[in-house]
């Protein structure tokens, strides 16, 4: 039975997973430099050991409520064609193994803005795991130059 490994994390109580091979590392919150005029989902730039990485706030990206005061986000750094990109999440979960049998496509009833970012759902015994489409989640409309 084929299984897949996911790095999991929580965003506003939703349980997400990203293919573990896509994840470069997970780190605590770093000092962020704001980028004015950037798309709203861009939280800013972080210095990841000399590499400048764009941080995207998944709460904003997934049209969820803003992170409450005092909750420090975690960085899930994923690899992309364009170099590393950091996804800001609320909390990190375990690396889990999900079997293909428990997979189902994303329910149609989700809001379209969120639905296109979710590749599917794994029915885990305790809860549902949403598979994040990192390519789509990190592809933002290019910031409009006013």
């Amino acid at each position, binding site marked *: 039975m084929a299984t897949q490994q996911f790095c999991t994390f929580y965003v506003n109580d939703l349980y997400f997973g990203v293919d573990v091979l896509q994840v470069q590392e997970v780190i605590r919150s770093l000092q962020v430099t704001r980028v004015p005029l950037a798309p709203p989902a861009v939280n800013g730039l972080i210095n990841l050991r*000399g590499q*400048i990485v764009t941080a995207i706030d998944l709460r904003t990206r997934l049209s969820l409520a803003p992170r409450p005061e005092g909750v420090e986000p975690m960085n899930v750094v994923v690899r992309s064609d364009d170099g590393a990109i950091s996804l800001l999440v609320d909390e990190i979960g375990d690396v889990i193994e999900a079997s293909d049998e428990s997979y189902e496509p994303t329910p149609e009833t989700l809001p379209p803005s969120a639905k296109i970012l979710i590749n599917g759902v794994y029915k885990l015994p305790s809860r549902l795991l949403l598979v994040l489409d990192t390519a789509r989640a990190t592809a933002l409309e290019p910031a409009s130059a006013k």
Partner: protein
Amino acid sequence: MHELDEITREFLVESNEGLDQLDRDLVALEQRPKDQELLARIFRCVHTIKGTCGFLGLKKLESVSHVGENLLSLLRDGVRDLTPERTSALLQLVDALRQMLGSIESTGAEGEVDYTALIARLTALQEDQAASSAPDEAGSPKNMGDHLVERGLVTQDDVREAAERQLSGDPRHIGEILVEQAQVPPQVIAEVLETQAAEGSRAASSVADSTIRVDVGLLDRLMNLVGELVLARNQILQHLTTSADHTLGATSQRLNLITTELQEGVMKTRMQPIGNVWSKFPRVVRDLASSCGKQIRLEMEGKETELDKTIIEAIKDPLTHIVRNSADHGIEAPDVRLARGKPAEGRIFMRAFHEGGQVNIEISDDGGGIDPAVIKQKAVQKGLLTTEQAGRLNDREAFNLIFAPGFSTAAKVTNVSGRGVGMDVVKTNIEKIGGTVDVNSVTGQGTTLRIRIPLTLAIIPGLIVTSHGDRYAIPQVSLLELVRLEGEEIGRSIELIYGAPVYRLRGNLLPLVVLNHALGCTAERWDVAGREAVNVVVLQADGTQFGLVVDEINDTEEIVVKPLAKQLKGIAAFAGATIMGDGKVALILDVGGLAQQSGVLQSEHDRARTEATAGTASDDGDRRTLLLFRAGQDRRLAVPLSEIARLEEFPVASTELAGTRRVVQYRGEIMPLVRLDEILDGVTRHNEIEDPIQVVVYAHRGQSIGLMVDQITDIVEQQIVVDRRSNGRAVAGSAVVQDRVTDLLDIEAVVGLAGLNHVDSRVPAGAGAEG
């Protein structure tokens, strides 16, 4: 990927270098067909390639180079003269060799192309004399035989004998034959081969012996590492300011120095003379000239000017395009040139030089030049501009239209250029590496393109500023000066026009861009009121100056430019990001983008247009901002607001007489005052001057001139249609403004009529001129 063995790779690298040199030499040879040294070098190069590929078993390559070598040996020995056909055939040979080498590099084989035609042509050009001039190895300068004789290992006779054996069909090299015949140790042969190779490259550069080849990838990695080191150094230095440890301090200083030197050193390894790119242009120009039936001489100056490798790569194509354009469109056909009284041979001149931390490259031709009228007409035809827009462009702006996408003026599309995709790509490519390109032309006399590019892209000096609590880096190349205004100076020198702040910098209006606003950090309206100090960074973008108002000016720092991720690429205001001394990321401002985004460039264009049309206000209805005022009791007048420096009020008592002219002390200068009601016709004159005097200050060649008016009525922005029929003194025309007929004042004419054309306020000598 096909794996090449070490020897083949070496051969490819060496041969390609040789071929580049061949291109240059062959074209040079055409100028000096009797130059023995050149001929010998060309021969040696082809000979070496032939020899090596024979050794490597590359039959096809060998056969092609062999016939070439035969022809060359005839030329060298003076049996045949160099004709243009022969040069062309030899250049074709170079192309064929290059093609095969390329094929070997990518596939490992010589490729399927058939070269029999070329071989036949090269053979034919020997005019059936090939038999009597088989490759005479013993005769070639400093060949294997000579070397061995010199070393005393063999005698001339041995060599002759070996050469004869070769001629009689021995396929082996002279070295191999000699090894067998005269017991020369093979190591010696190898040594000599090396010496020969060194000789070959010494011809190109006398320092070849002391150089090694380094993989560019390695250099790039080194550069990146140095970049990291610079950042780490910056962090340590920053940390040092809060530390009292002396040993650490001293060590850090040392680290600082070494890092700087290392940075310079690594940067230097990446520097290449621009001649590397230019070297192919003689060939390009020659080919173009012969295919267009033109005569063109290419001259170069400053070949040794060095540039970062990445920049060299980036300007290669744009430069080629420009040179092609000059040859194709710039230089006229010989008969046209003669008819215009120019020598039949056209001249393209390339010049490179360093200036102010930047490299300037100029490409000029003495061709037909660009006719601004034709450019404008073409732009209108192509729908890039409306007729009225075109009418308002000055020549310089018209020339720059050639960089507009979809623009090509070539009357006919040739296979070289004229497809209208060229110059805009040239401009974008040059701008991509932080450069600018500008064109100037005199109809009938030629065109000059000037490119300015930074020396290097990786590490640049930057000015760090703070805005809204965040730090930003500004590349120092765009920086002109820093201005700090304090206290009441602020209100005096910064004025608001419709909320847009402008600053008077030595008599010129400098539009101000408030960084906080430009970056959308605050929506609050910027005002001078209540500020203790204002920091203005005077910047230059695209030939336009503007002032950037920032909260704080911090320091200058070497910054390592890192590109932004694609999510942020679209923001015109940023050129990249860098890591600061404290480890935080700071954004690097793109001065050009910022100017564009804030409309500074746009407004500058408008101003340039207004200047171009000053006095001859355009007939077309266009939107303009006008200052309305009254002179005398009833005359309504207007001037474009852009021509006015300032509005002032002076009490009559503060005016003085200098000669017969009324003047007022103004900003440490003596400003002459002109009574408009005296100058203009049909104005009811007042006997008494109203107190206070309303003055419109006009900056004339850097000097202020005050126009006394009776009342400033309004500032309007509206569409006006100028009627030129009214012809009063110093009136450019009339227009309906706010439903009333208003005369447009021609200020230059007023200045002239007042005899202030050569005014120098420090010496009010002009005062007597009118009196």
